[in-house]
């Protein structure tokens, strides 16, 4: 009877250890998956990313090359870039630290979603967005500022 109880305890202990090991492994895998997902959400390079995602349902892509300037590694930038990639032939993203207006010549339109410095000689076709855009308009003395 005592022996039987001992065996039972050993079996239960073994099961508990197995369960613990299984949970630990499972948890570790889950964390690893989440980390990888998080990594997939943002471009690996902080400053430059050539998008190659699938085409949108909106007929064929528009033949324009877009440079998107926005904070790298953010859901917001990814949101914009995914959408733009689905609609334009070429989309490249760059953060404000890496932005160089002299290197915009290979693009047709520059889209700016954060406050960056551009000179008064910057004449590239540009879309500015939201409050950041009005601040750029303000310091350039453009009517697109707050006024």
């Amino acid at each position, binding site marked *: 009877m005592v022996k039987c109880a001992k065996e039972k305890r050993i079996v239960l202990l073994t099961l508990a250890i197995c369960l613990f090991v299984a949970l630990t492994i499972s948890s570790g895998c889950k964390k690893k998956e989440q980390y990888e997902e998080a990594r997939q959400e943002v471009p690996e390079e902080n400053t430059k990313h050539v998008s190659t995602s699938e085409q949108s349902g*909106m007929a064929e892509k*528009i033949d*324009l090359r*877009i440079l998107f300037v926005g904070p790298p590694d953010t859901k*917001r930038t990814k*949101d*914009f870039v*995914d*959408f733009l990639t689905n*609609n*334009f032939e070429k989309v490249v993203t760059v953060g404000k630290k890496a932005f160089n207006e002299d290197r915009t010549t290979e693009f*047709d*339109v520059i*889209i700016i979603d954060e406050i960056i410095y551009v000179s008064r000689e910057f*004449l*590239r*076709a*540009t*879309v*500015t*967005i*939201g*409050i*950041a*855009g*009005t601040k*750029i*308009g303000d310091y*350039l*003395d*453009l*009517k*697109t*500022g*707050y*006024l």
Partner: protein
Amino acid sequence: MKDAAHAELLEHEVFQKPFKVEPEFESRDTPSNYHSRNLSKDKLPDKIKVWRVQNEGRDGRRYGGAVSRSYGYTDSPDAEVLVKGYNTGKEYGAVGVGRHGNFLQWGYWAPPSLMTEAGRKLFLNCICYIRRFDGKASLIRAVSHHRMNTIRIAPGVDRLRKSAEENKRITPYIPMDLLNKYAGDPEGLKQFYRDNLEFVYQDRIFQVDNKLESLGLDSNRSLESLERLISFLQDETKADTARLLLTRYTNQSFKDADGWRQWFENNRDRIFFSDMGGYKFSVVPKGYMDNK
């Protein structure tokens, strides 16, 4: 700016191509700021027709929508209003999406996943539209405030006067003699500027150009006034004042009346006046408007 646009300007190319934008209209209450900031004598309706550009919500604190003030936005041919933004901060007609030179400002804050289908199409069309303005510098820089701002700030006459008295380093936009004259009478000051709107210019503070009026001219911004000022150069009794005013309202300098006349005749069809550009007559360069 809120999430919507006014149901206007829908004939513009940015609503047509490459994607046809088909807004879904709705009727909303006219925001109270539209009533309080209304500078027109006509009352605004209680309901107003709008269409939703993006869905509600905010994407963190770093982003937000913005409208630009409407006064003076189109006083130079290098700028245009594309969308009037439904807003709770500025006046009715404030610019939600607009262009100045090679810059197109999309005033809405939402990323594409939060835009409506019509909003997304308009956004794409705007990107395509601005492409043609690559290399097109703006003709003027917004270095002055539009004259309508005199009427806008007139109701704050007592506050402006108090601030200027308490801190001598503060320069009120309205001259002290007017602030004193209309103390406690904001409506009087408002009416003064309404009556003199065509003579307002900004030289650090807003001034009313009595010299222009003394020459019998009825506006400082009409092409006719410019032409007459040039003609006054040949009238000894008016030449000095005319010369002073031509310096005030243009960036040109000519030795004699013939030089002015020649400049005017050569550019007559391309001359514009901009309050925001410093209360100056300027000339649109030949070919500038060709791809517009």
